[in-house]
């Protein structure tokens, strides 16, 4: 196990810069997720760590050793690819044993270690099968077993769950996290799925257009987004231009049209100064209440329902508050409000975040 350090790395393809100057420190044993939409540079970054791409500038250091000039097959990394990349002409056991043959593992030990790895991924009886005889989820587990049996210094996962269907994906998410905690290997996980990132990571690196937007613990990234991009990418947010009228050590006061004064805690507005600002109000924190309902010290504003997007367990409303349209995602308690209903929109100021305005 080793830490991974990216020092001022840049990746250009011709005139196109896929990754702008980035520095990233991934501590030993951490589960770090590179999160972002397609084309944000997350896979390029992962492939540079793996040695499948050479950085144009900067250094890659794994376990204190600069690896820029070390080819992939000498880096001792476990890589799990998006489409599993199992060897179709080899059995499951041969797939898992593949990496051990290139290491100083006594021949007699190989079957035992293969079996141990297959047990870890809960497929102890499938060693003799061919990959195509397995389901997608099983293939994914075999790919994981193949990557961890070599006891890699770092485990690199490139969207490993995206080819699975929804239910299986959630099971595998739990499973993957369990295995990672069990063996404690430093893990870099690439995904575009915010819920995977939030559920699994110790730390999330949000990327956009080749730049790192924010690095932080899941709660931090979710609750105190560092930019409008982060606020929008992790769940739906309402972003309201406003004025920061007071900035103190305990927090900031934001004045937004139709919402009034909102006291945002300091932790959620680290970069805010007095002057133009933006209020970030998550759609799931904005609750619609019938007119006249008690509002327990929340900030309220009269609203009109314009669109109702029924989603079963929850409902997504578009409501008009003053001049602006807001999004609200609420659990359905009895029945959703109808289009045109006059309601009260309520939220707690401590659920809001503030960003510096333009």
């Amino acid at each position, binding site marked *: 196990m080793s830490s991974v350090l990216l020092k001022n790395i840049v990746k250009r393809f011709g005139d196109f810069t896929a990754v702008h100057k980035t520095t990233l420190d991934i501590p030993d044993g951490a589960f770090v997720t590179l999160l972002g939409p397609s084309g944000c540079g997350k896979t390029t970054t992962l492939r540079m760590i*793996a040695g*499948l791409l050479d950085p144009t500038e900067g250094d890659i250091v794994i376990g204190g050793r600069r690896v820029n000039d070390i*080819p*992939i*097959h*000498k*880096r*001792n*990394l*476990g*890589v799990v*690819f*998006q*489409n599993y*990349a*199992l*060897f*179709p*002409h080899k059995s499951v056991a041969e797939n898992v044993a*593949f*990496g051990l*043959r*290139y*290491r100083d593992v006594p021949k007699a030990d190989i079957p035992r270690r293969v079996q141990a790895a297959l047990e870890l991924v809960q497929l102890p009886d499938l060693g003799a099968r*061919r*990959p*195509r*005889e397995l389901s997608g989820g099983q293939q994914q587990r075999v*790919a994981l077993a*193949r*990557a961890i049996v*070599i006891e890699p210094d770092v485990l690199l996962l490139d969207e490993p769950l995206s080819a699975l269907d929804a239910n299986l994906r959630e099971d595998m998410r739990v499973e993957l996290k369990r295995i990672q905690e069990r063996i404690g290997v430093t893990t870099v996980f690439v995904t575009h799925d915010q819920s995977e990132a939030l559920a699994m990571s110790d730390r999330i690196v949000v990327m956009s257009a080749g730049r790192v937007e924010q690095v932080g613990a899941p709660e931090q990234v979710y609750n105190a987004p560092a930019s409008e991009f982060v606020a929008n990418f992790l769940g739906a947010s309402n972003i309201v231009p406003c004025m920061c009228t007071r900035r103190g050590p305990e927090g900031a006061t934001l004045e937004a049209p139709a919402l009034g004064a909102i006291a945002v805690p300091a932790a959620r507005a680290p970069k805010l100064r007095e002057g133009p600002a933006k209020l970030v109000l998550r759609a799931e924190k904005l609750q619609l209440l019938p007119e006249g309902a008690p509002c327990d010290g929340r900030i309220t504003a009269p609203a009109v329902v314009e669109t109702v997007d029924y989603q079963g367990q929850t409902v997504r409303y578009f409501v008009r508050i003053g001049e602006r349209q807001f999004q609200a995602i609420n659990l359905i308690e009895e029945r959703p409000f109808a289009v045109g209903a006059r309601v009260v929109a309520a939220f707690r100021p401590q659920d809001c975040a503030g960003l510096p305005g333009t």
Partner: protein
Amino acid sequence: MMGWQLIRAWAIAVYVFMFLPVGVVVLLSFNDSQFGSFPMTGLSLRWFAELWSNEAILRAFRTSVALGLLTALISTTLGVLAALALVRYRVPGANAISTLLIAPILVPEVVLAVALLLFLDFLGLHKSFALLLLGHVIFTLPFVVLVVQARLVSIRRDVEEAAMSLGASPAQAFFQVTLPLMRPAVLAGGLFAFTVSFDDVTGTLFWKPGGVETVPTQIFAMLRNSISPEINALGTAMIVMTVGLPLLGAAIARRLAMKDGG
């Protein structure tokens, strides 16, 4: 209903037209008669025995087999390398190279044959077995390149990357992963090259040095005299070689592909 029946009858008629002559050759090769035509006077393997003792035909047969095997070997090796370069590496002008490699099956064979002869004359070289082999390699290469390329495109790059991430050097990854996955196509390509070479008349007539005959040119020569029943027997033997071998090869390739999970 009526329309479909007509179409069916028509289709059967087409097949009969295509395969009846071949069937007749095979049938007549077992004919006891002196003449290579109907009526049949009795069943016999006599003409196969004659064939077996005809030194000219046996020599032609050996030449054809040697030529076919060498063509297949060289074409397959070159074709696999070309396909690898075109699919796996960024080669400048890859499209043009690809087209040029395929061109020999588009250019009329007579033109190709004359062109190669003229070129050789220009270089001041004489006809030889090596030239014949060269010619065969040129026009069997496209088959190998096409078949192997098609297969290689379907082999995902990340399988090779996975092998390397596990510690295999690029060469080890090729021999452990890429080559076994390409094997059915390599075999099919080689078989194609062999059959095309074994079957060829036009180019061979132009390129063969004096005194050297392949099976097809030998038959051609024999036909000038008369339709000997030996030709029927030879035809049957050729059919077994050029139809039977690819079928056998395809079956083996399918077996391998099934075993390897395609």
